Structure formats: structure tokens, C-alpha cells
């Protein structure tokens, strides 16, 4: 009975509303503007706190990321869905996570923040959203052409516990903040990294989101993909609920500021707002889900999703160290070129791992 409720449309709508309201309130309680929740930005901040990049304004261990994984773990254990599994092209997933992060940091937000930027009145996010849909649509073309990363296999339980344990380790670092001679641990004293909601409130909200999202399979990329691919609007209703709930909450909290210029943690170069999210949308689709979904999957024992998350962390470090990530001034020096290279790599992966390659080989014979 309870299981049926959790997989019902009512519950995915509830989850969307809960995430939308939570994001607006997390912003009110201290998180950066239009960034109440941003999986990509928060993974990037966490990478910075560990010293994997030295962009001093975006370094903080975000408890939301920790809560997403551990909330999903709790739900999976309670409902007997914790299933350690691994072995579906992990290195390809690492690369896809890396490239998804590059694309997201050129736009300045993941699919979750795309919706939250829109809900805050940021018109630039429309171009990001358009890019996201185009990226997903390209991914669907390859899925229809037989794209497949191969089957995973059940594995030893310890494999499924690695990501949750890493998250517990991050939580301990967040609480105790050890100071080492190298300067670690790095927490921003100014900029978005210095803006955060109280840890206790953020982690409780994130645990709840992780729990609900594991039960409903909440995914911002699959929401669009499933409508186009299999005419299924289940997840889409959840995502629309998120957008509307965040919009309504922002209006009530006076956080809605419509316009294109001077939007928080955003730039107005629409070509690369669009291009960045084409890359992110394609990489997420080829990996099977949005960054939030990858965290929730890694909480229920999916080690391949965990490898994708590690790819995102590496991508975040690289994007900031190599002048790829954008700033409010515009794309980084190597941002546009990296998006193009990233798209080429995604196309090669998708082509090579689909029936298109087989067909071309047969045609040659």
C-alpha cells in the first residue's frame, strides 16, 4: 500500500513541490541567490573545499549533497532497494560526469538550478533550458539507435557502501573543519561559497529530499526524456511542480527579480548558456539521469552512478583550474572550446556504443 503511494503521481508532485519550496527557503536561510539547491554548483563547492580547485569564492562542503546520498540510502534500506551493483562502463561514466560538469559550469548551473533560476526571474536560464532540451533530444536519438553502456552486475555489499561512507567523511570534515598546514580545509570567506544555510537545517531538508527522490525516482533529465521517448509524463509533472512551487515561494519571499542583466551567479552570453547546457543535457542523458539522480542512485548502491559523481568532482576541479568555468562576466577563456571538445567526445562515445557503428561496419562490408 505504502509502496504504491510512493510510486503514484501524487507523490512525485509532492516531491517536486517539496524541493521547490525547500530551495526557496534554503536561499532565504543563506544559500546563494537562485541556488537554494544546485547539484552541480554544490559538488563544485565541495571539490573546492577539498582543494581540488582554488577558486576562492566557491569553496564549501555543501551538506545538501551529503543529505541527498544519505537520504536515498535510508529510503533504499527501509524499502529493501539497497542493491550494490557495478560494472556498466564505469570509465565512460566518469568521462560523462566530467563533461556534464564542464557544460554545467559554462552555463552556471545544473538542470535543477536551471529551473530555480527561471523561478527567480533569470531570463538567461531560458537559453540554458533550451540547450538542456536539445542535449536530451540528441541523447534520445542515440538511445533510439541502440546506445547502451552495457549491463551492471550485482556485487559485494561493501561496494554499495563506499559512496555513503565518503559522504559521512565529508560531513565530519564539515563539522570539525580541520586546519592543515596546506591551508585545507578551504572554506570561502566571501562570494557564493561563503553563503550557506545553517548546516543542521540544510542536512535535514536534504535527507528528506534524498528520501522522497529515491522513492519517486525523481530526475529532471528523465522528466523531459520520458515525455519525448515514451510519452510518459510522470516525472515531468514532478519537475513542473518544482518550478511552480519555487516560483510561488520566491514571489512570497520577495526573491523574484525578472530580467536578464545583473542576475545572481549568471552571465548573459546566450550562445554559451545554450551550448553549455547542450553538452550537460547530452552527457546526463547518455549516463541515464541528472546529477541529482546520480547522487540518489549512488545512495542505493549503484557504484556506476558513484563513478559519475566522482567524474563531476574531477570535472569541477578541472573546469576552475583551467579557465573553463564561467563567471558573471561571461564564459572562461577556454569555456567555449571545451564545450565543443566535450560535445565531440560525447558524440564519439554515443556513436561507438550504439548500433550506428555496427551498421556502418556492415555497410562497409
Amino acid at each position, binding site marked *: 500500500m505504502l509502496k504504491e503511494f510512493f510510486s503514484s503521481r501524487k507523490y512525485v508532485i509532492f516531491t517536486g513541490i517539496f524541493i521547490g519550496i525547500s530551495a526557496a527557503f534554503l536561499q532565504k536561510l543563506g544559500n546563494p541567490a537562485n541556488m537554494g539547491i544546485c547539484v552541480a554548483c554544490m559538488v563544485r563547492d565541495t571539490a573546492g573545499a577539498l582543494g581540488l580547485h582554488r577558486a576562492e569564492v566557491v569553496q564549501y562542503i555543501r551538506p545538501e549533497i551529503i543529505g541527498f546520498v544519505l537520504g536515498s540510502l535510508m529510503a533504499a534500506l527501509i524499502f529493501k532497494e539497497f542493491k550494490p551493483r557495478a560494472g*556498466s562502463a564505469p570509465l565512460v561514466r566518469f568521462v560523462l560526469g566530467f563533461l556534464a560538469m564542464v557544460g554545467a559550469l559554462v552555463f552556471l548551473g545544473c538542470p535543477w538550478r536551471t529551473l530555480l533560476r527561471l523561478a527567480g526571474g533569470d531570463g538567461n536560464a531560458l537559453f540554458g533550458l533550451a540547450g538542456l532540451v536539445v542535449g536530451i533530444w540528441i541523447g534520445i536519438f542515440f538511445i533510439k539507435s541502440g546506445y*547502451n553502456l552495457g549491463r551492471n552486475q550485482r556485487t559485494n555489499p561493501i561496494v554499495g557502501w563506499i559512496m555513503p561512507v565518503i559522504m559521512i567523511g565529508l560531513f565530519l570534515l564539515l563539522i570539525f573543519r580541520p586546519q592543515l598546514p596546506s591551508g585545507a580545509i578551504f572554506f570561502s570567506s566571501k562570494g557564493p561559497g561563503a553563503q550557506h544555510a545553517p548546516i543542521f537545517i540544510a542536512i535535514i531538508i536534504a535527507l528528506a529530499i534524498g528520501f522522497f527522490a529515491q522513492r519517486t525516482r525523481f530526475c529532471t533529465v528523465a522528466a523531459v526524456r520520458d515525455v519525448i521517448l515514451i510519452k510518459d509524463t510522470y516525472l515531468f509533472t514532478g519537475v513542473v511542480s518544482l518550478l511552480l512551487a519555487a516560483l510561488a515561494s520566491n514571489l512570497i519571499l520577495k526573491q523574484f527579480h525578472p530580467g536578464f542583466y545583473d542576475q545572481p551567479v549568471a552571465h548573459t552570453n546566450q550562445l554559451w548558456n545554450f551550448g553549455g547546457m547542450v553538452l550537460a543535457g547530452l552527457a546526463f542523458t547518455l549516463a541515464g539521469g541528472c546529477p541529482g539522480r546520480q547522487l540518489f542512485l549512488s545512495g542505493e548502491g549503484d557504484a556506476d552512478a558513484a563513478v559519475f559523481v566522482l567524474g563531476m568532482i574531477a570535472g569541477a576541479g578541472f573546469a576552475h583550474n583551467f579557465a573553463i568555468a564561467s563567471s558573471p562576466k561571461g564564459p572562461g577563456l577556454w569555456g567555449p572550446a571545451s564545450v565543443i571538445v566535450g560535445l565531440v567526445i560525447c558524440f564519439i562515445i554515443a556513436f561507438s556504443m550504439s548500433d550506428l557503428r555496427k551498421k556502418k561496419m556492415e555497410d562497409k562490408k
Partner: protein
Amino acid sequence: MNQSIDVRGLSCPLPVVTVRKKLLEIKNGVLEVLVDTGTSRDNITRMAVNASWKVVVREEDGEYLLTISK
């Protein structure tokens, strides 16, 4: 004889896409599907029920056998 598909271990959305393609092909009859995650179980069940198929789910050792019929 019933037809069967094993979609265990496949990433989303391949399980539901594979089963949908097969259902469109056979049009009616019985299809047995073996899945290993709750996500695939729910996605396939929702897709099949929306297309007017009947779905019976049986759980065995943490995996699910879906009997889809029309």
C-alpha cells in the same frame, strides 16, 4: 509459448524502451520480463498499464518477474 526478456542490469531508460518496443511488436499475448530494480519495475508497469496491458508483478530474491498480458 510465452515470450520473455531479461532487462536486468540495464541502465534507465533501456529496460522500459526495450519492453515497449517488444510490446508494440507483439501487439497482444503474454510477455514475461525479468527486472532487478524497483525503478525499472515501476517504469515498465506504468508504461504497460498506460498502453492497456495487464501487469502482474512477482518478487523473487530481490528481483521481479513481470507478466504482461493483453
